């Protein structure tokens, strides 16, 4: 059986000349939980957005379930997109709309235009929305405005919206980077559950290597737009870690409830003399 997703020599050069992705090739099998790691600016967001063409790759091919995504246009591209859910660091909910409306947005790719314009979702879609909100434990907030929710709750709405698509693939761009460690774990567990229970393949970028080790079945590390590591989480030893994050990086273990960054870069030499008290954390 061919892989669910295959990236072939993806290059992305942004206008202005930044080479965000430099010949990335990757094959993702059904059921995998792939965690993308890498320093800030290494190209994680760009890679995820090339998969559903929110960002147009400069060259290379994306093949999803035997369909060439990069060649798809208009309605065909939208049909592919609705099979890929996506969740975001900033949740990207329509803040002034209700939680229910936000969840229903996940159904737009299946909905005739008049239903959108008239604001009349079908009964089936409505019930699906309630079911998905219940699944992420937020049914009680269905009629609240999205911006009245906490960050963790908003991200669960984001997951519900993506689940509404009944996707085969879930793209998650730093889904827990705006959340505290305890909430991070609760959101990651929902992703784990949809991976296990629904068999949805997950590609998720993360800041914390401890989370990557805990939830990923496979880790792909990007460095300067290239794949620097691709293998099991356990394969990332000290040497690999320094390769990915740079010589000065130190891994910090964090568990739920702890509030500390994974990485603390201690300035050395010249930097240290200028600002001895500064602790610079790579990745914001």
């Amino acid at each position: 059986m061919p892989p669910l997703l295959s990236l072939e020599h993806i290059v992305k050069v942004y206008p202005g000349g930044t080479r965000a992705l430099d010949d990335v090739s990757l094959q993702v099998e059904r059921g995998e939980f792939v965690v993308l790691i890498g320093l800030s600016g290494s190209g994680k967001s760009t890679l995820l957005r090339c998969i559903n063409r929110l960002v147009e790759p400069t060259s290379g091919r994306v093949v999803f379930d035997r369909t060439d995504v990069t060649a798809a246009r208009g309605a065909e591209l939208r049909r592919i997109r609705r099979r890929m859910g996506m969740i975001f660091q900033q949740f990207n909910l329509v803040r002034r709309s209700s939680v229910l409306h936000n969840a229903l947005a996940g159904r737009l790719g299946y909905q005739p235009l008049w239903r959108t314009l008239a604001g009349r979702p079908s009964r089936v879609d409505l019930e699906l929305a309630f079911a998905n909100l219940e699944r992420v434990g937020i049914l009680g907030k269905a009629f609240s405005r999205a911006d009245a929710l906490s960050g963790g709750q908003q991200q669960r709405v984001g997951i519900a919206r993506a689940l509404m698509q009944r996707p085969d693939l879930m793209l998650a761009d730093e889904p827990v980077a705006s959340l505290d460690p305890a909430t991070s774990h609760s959101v990651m567990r929902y992703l784990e559950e949809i991976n296990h229970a629904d068999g949805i393949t997950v590609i998720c970028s993360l800041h914390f290597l401890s989370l990557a080790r805990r939830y990923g079945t496979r880790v792909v590390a990007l460095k300067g737009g290239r794949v620097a590591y691709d293998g099991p989480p356990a394969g990332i030893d000290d040497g690999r870690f320094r390769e990915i994050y740079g010589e000065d990086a130190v891994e910090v273990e964090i568990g739920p409830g702890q509030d500390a960054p994974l990485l603390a870069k201690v300035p050395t030499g010249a930097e240290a003399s200028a600002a001895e008290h500064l602790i610079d954390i790579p990745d914001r």
Partner: protein
Amino acid sequence: MSAKYFTARGLPVPAELGPAWRTSWRRWTAIAATLAVLAVGVRITDIDTSRANPEYAAQIVFGQLFRPDWNALFSMEDVESVWDTGLGLMVVTIMLAVVATAASIVLALPFSFLGARNIMSGHPVSLAVYSAVRLLFTIIRSIDILIVGIIGVILFSIGNAAGVFAIGFHNVGVLGKLYSEAIENIDQGPIEAVTATGANRLQVIWTAVLPQIVTPFIALTIYRLDANVRFAPILGFVGAGGIGLVLFQNLQLLRYPQAGAIILAIVITVAAMDFFSAQIRKRLL
């Protein structure tokens, strides 16, 4: 100075900490240029106060303008309907602004989406449309409303039609720009997220853009309505209808008590409008 901090460490000294003359040179040039412009301005405008007549002015202002002749507002003599009385004309003037604002909304609303960069980016053709629409807004806005009023009077002859035309036309440019910028200022995240679900462009606008712009659009519209009601009385001075027409005639005929009554009516209307529009916008935001 604190430049020592850098030299002691062998670091390049930031320009801001360089010799003082470099920054002060710029400052003195700016001051000198400003003074020069002012000096030339005062000279060529030839401000002449020698013919001022304070006693006459005081007599007119306090003796006539501030002793309003309320008949100018209420008298039904020589008029065909209540709308031709001073007060009636005030209401007509307000309605003139309301109708003109409504007309400009109808045109500005659809065009503002074409003039919003975030909606139109992604394709060279749509980007060209965006630039054209924004240029159009700028051109329309740059034609002063009094000039449009004069053109309106030539087109429709003296009367309210010219006033509606002037305010309506000018505000297509103003509201179009304000609406477009409001659309550009919305949170892009939901647009990205809804696009990712496989929604088409219209669905994205409907679901992710509209809920974000309703409130700013209402606030901007009220703000413009306020400005238009404020401006409508002045349009009468070029013949473009409303109470200004009558005010202008009274001033020409040196009927100051009548003019005073009309001016008072305008001031009260504008103040009330100002108050209510501020209240409504405060509630909205």
